[in-house]
Every structure is written in structure tokens, then in C-alpha cells.
């Protein structure tokens, strides 16, 4: 079988996959065959090493089938994994930064915190206006309850905005710093010269030079996808910290989101019933409050069910066999 025949057959058998995935896997096999030929095998031999093409295609599809399940079911496990990887990347990145960069980030971070505070002002203002308006209507206990709900929502909005800003700050300012290549070259060269007397020292300097260089595309000078960096120094301790973070995150989700969610749902359902009872027994204009309570309880039930699914839903899915 020639290369063209092999890939035509494989492509046909993988037609169920989308184009990008198909190209991805076929590229891997293409380069695999290239390497085999470099190692002195013939093209036919390299292709024969893949064995029966039907079995191979079945194997690939099987792997994708599991993938689809894994990505469709965005369980708590998936979120924790993404979170852990993100935190780890950030720590690696920060540990690999120079002092001046860290100073720059700290200054920028202070500005960001100030910006978050500024943005929170209008939200607080709206919150306070609504609450004083509610008190103005003198609705008694129900007024307090509604004021509490308004307050809760405005705080949640503030937290969400702050979280988004900090996240995008880390993404744009910390993760994608474009270092200038010549700077590294000059810096490392001078170091090598000063430590020329000490061979061992000079050796490590050259090594670090090539290591830095390996992180950049030779032609464009742009950084390649981030590799292992000096962050390795803090590995063993960050290992432990990340394990702790996963545990804390689990507890946090349960205690701070799930439990209040349940409490809020129960409270809102009770409030709905009370307002309906009041509406029937007193017969006066409580329609608005009745509808607000009913609406809020529906939203609250929805949110609680969703969070429950995130916390407890994914757990059932154990790692499947390959």
C-alpha cells in the first residue's frame, strides 16, 4: 500500500470526525512515516507497521468516542483540572519572570484593583437606590427580604466583574509577555565573559543561554508555546499547594455556593407561598411581590440544580477503559 492509498483509506474510515481532528491525527501519522523513512525503513514497511487499517481506525474512533463523552460532560473534575493547569501555568510563568517584570506586574495589578473598585461604584449606587426605594414603600418583612436579594445580586455582579478583570489581566499581561530576544543574548553573553575564569560556571551560563533561546522561534523571534521554565525550582512545593487548592476548591464550592443556593431556594419558595397566602387572605395589591418571589424562586431552583449537577453530576463517570 502506498502512502496516498493508506491515507485515503484512513480518511474515509474517519469521515465521522470533523475536519480539524481528522487533519490533526493524519498529520501525526504522516510525520511518523517520515521519521520511519529517515530511520532507514521503506514507506511500505512503515505503513505495514500500523497493522490492519480497520483495527487502527476502530482504535482511533474508540478514543474519540470517549473524548466526546468527556468533553460533553463538563463535570466538576473537568473544571478543577482546567483550573489547576491554569494556576500551575501562572506560577511557572511568574517564577520565570525577572525582578523588573514582577515589579511591573505588581504596579499594573494595583491599577487593576483600583479599576475594579471604580467599576463597583455604579453597581453599589444602583443597589443602594433600589434598597432605599424599597424601604420607602414600607413593605415590612418582605421589603427587607427583597432588599437582601438586591444586595446579594449586586455583590455577585461585583465579584463576577472583579473575577473577569483579574482573569483577563493574568491572561494578557502575565501569560503573554513578549520578551525581546537580543536582550537575552546580550545579558547571557556578558555573564559568560565575567565568569570566564570558572569553567563550570561558564558552562551553566551557556546552557541557560541555549535554553532561553530554545523558547523562541529562530526566524521571527516570537516566543514559542511556553515550555518548562525556571519554575521547576518551585515544583515540589507547588505540587502540594495545588493538591491543597483542589481540596479547598471542592469545599468552597460546596459550602459557599451549594448550601446557600439550597437555603435561598427554600426561602424563596416559602416567600412565594406567604405572598400568595397574603394575596388571597388580604386581597390587596401584592401581585407584584408575589410574581417577583415566584420568578426569583424559579431562577434560584434552576441555578441550584445546575450547581448540584456540576458538583455531584460528573463524579459518577469514572475513567473508562482505553
Amino acid at each position, binding site marked *: 500500500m502506498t502512502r496516498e492509498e493508506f491515507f485515503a483509506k484512513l480518511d474515509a474510515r474517519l469521515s465521522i470526525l470533523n475536519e480539524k481532528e481528522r487533519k490533526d491525527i493524519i498529520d501525526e501519522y504522516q510525520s511518523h512515516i517520515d521519521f520511519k523513512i529517515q530511520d532507514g525503513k521503506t514507506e511500505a514497511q512503515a505503513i505495514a507497521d500500523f497493522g490492519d487499517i480497520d483495527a487502527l481506525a476502530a482504535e482511533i474512533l474508540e*478514543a474519540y468516542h470517549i473524548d466526546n463523552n468527556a468533553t460533553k460532560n463538563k463535570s466538576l473534575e473537568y473544571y478543577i483540572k482546567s483550573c489547576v493547569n491554569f494556576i500551575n501555568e501562572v506560577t511557572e510563568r511568574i517564577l520565570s519572570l525577572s525582578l523588573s517584570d514582577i515589579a511591573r506586574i505588581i504596579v499594573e495589578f494595583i491599577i487593576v484593583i483600583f479599576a475594579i473598585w471604580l467599576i463597583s461604584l455604579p453597581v453599589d449606587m444602583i443597589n443602594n437606590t433600589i434598597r432605599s426605594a424599597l424601604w420607602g414603600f414600607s413593605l415590612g418583612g418582605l421589603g427587607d427580604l427583597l432588599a437582601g436579594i438586591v444586595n446579594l445580586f449586586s455583590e455577585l455582579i461585583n465579584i463576577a466583574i472583579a473575577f473577569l478583570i483579574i482573569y483577563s489581566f493574568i491572561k494578557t499581561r502575565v501569560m503573554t509577555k513578549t520578551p525581546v530576544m537580543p536582550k537575552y543574548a546580550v545579558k547571557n553573553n556578558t555573564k559568560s565573559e565575567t565568569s570566564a575564569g570558572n569553567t563550570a560556571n561558564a558552562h551553566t551560563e551557556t546552557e541557560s543561554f541555549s535554553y532561553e533561546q530554545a523558547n523562541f522561534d529562530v526566524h521571527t523571534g516570537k516566543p514559542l508555546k511556553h*515550555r518548562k521554565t525556571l519554575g521547576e525550582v518551585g515544583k515540589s512545593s507547588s*505540587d502540594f499547594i495545588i493538591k491543597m487548592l483542589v481540596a479547598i476548591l471542592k469545599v468552597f464550592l460546596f459550602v459557599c455556593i451549594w448550601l446557600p443556593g439550597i437555603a435561598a431556594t427554600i426561602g424563596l419558595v416559602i416567600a412565594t407561598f406567604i405572598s400568595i397566602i397574603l394575596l388571597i387572605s388580604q386581597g390587596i395589591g401584592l401581585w407584584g411581590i408575589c410574581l417577583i418571589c415566584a420568578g426569583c424562586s424559579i431562577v434560584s431552583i434552576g441555578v441550584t440544580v445546575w450547581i448540584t449537577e456540576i458538583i455531584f453530576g460528573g463524579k459518577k463517570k469514572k475513567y473508562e477503559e482505553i
Partner: protein
Amino acid sequence: MNPQFKKGVLELIVLLVISKEDKYGYQLVSEVGRIVDVNEGTIYPLLKRLTNEKYCETYLEQSAEGPARKYYKITMAGKIYLEILTKEWLQFSQTVNDFIKEMQ
């Protein structure tokens, strides 16, 4: 060797290999091939799955000879998973070995 045995430990071996050092596809396949005699084609789908499950990630790097290579790098989640797999394997093989001795 029983193919079911191989399939079970392949994930563990692949993660072990990339936990030492980032590897590109062919390098990884050859290294794994030294330990288990397995059809080379089957390692790529496994790598794909590990990547989608966030146990490893990929990046492209230019090479002196030929086109850019796709490297596989273990993630923190992958390291934790590897630790669990290693423990499970050691315990399981110990139990089976003990049982074999007991029966002979």
C-alpha cells in the same frame, strides 16, 4: 503478551515517559515501543485522548531538520493522575504476584 495487559498499562507508560521530558510523537512512540511491544498506530489516539482530558498538552517547536514537531508536555493534572495510576499499578501487581506465589 496478552494484548489486554498492554492496553491497561499503556496510559501509565506514556504519562511516565512525558513526565521526564517533553517528547514529540515519534520519539514517544519509539520509547514506549521499547518497553511494550505494541502497534505504533495505537499510541496516537491515546495521546489525543490524554490531551483532550487535559492530562497533557501540545506545542509546536521548530527543528533544525524538517518541519515543526508537535511536542507533548504533561500537565499538573496529568502528574497527579500519573501518581494515582502508579500507586494503583504497584498495589495491583503486588497483589497478583502474591496470589500467584500462594497458589503455586
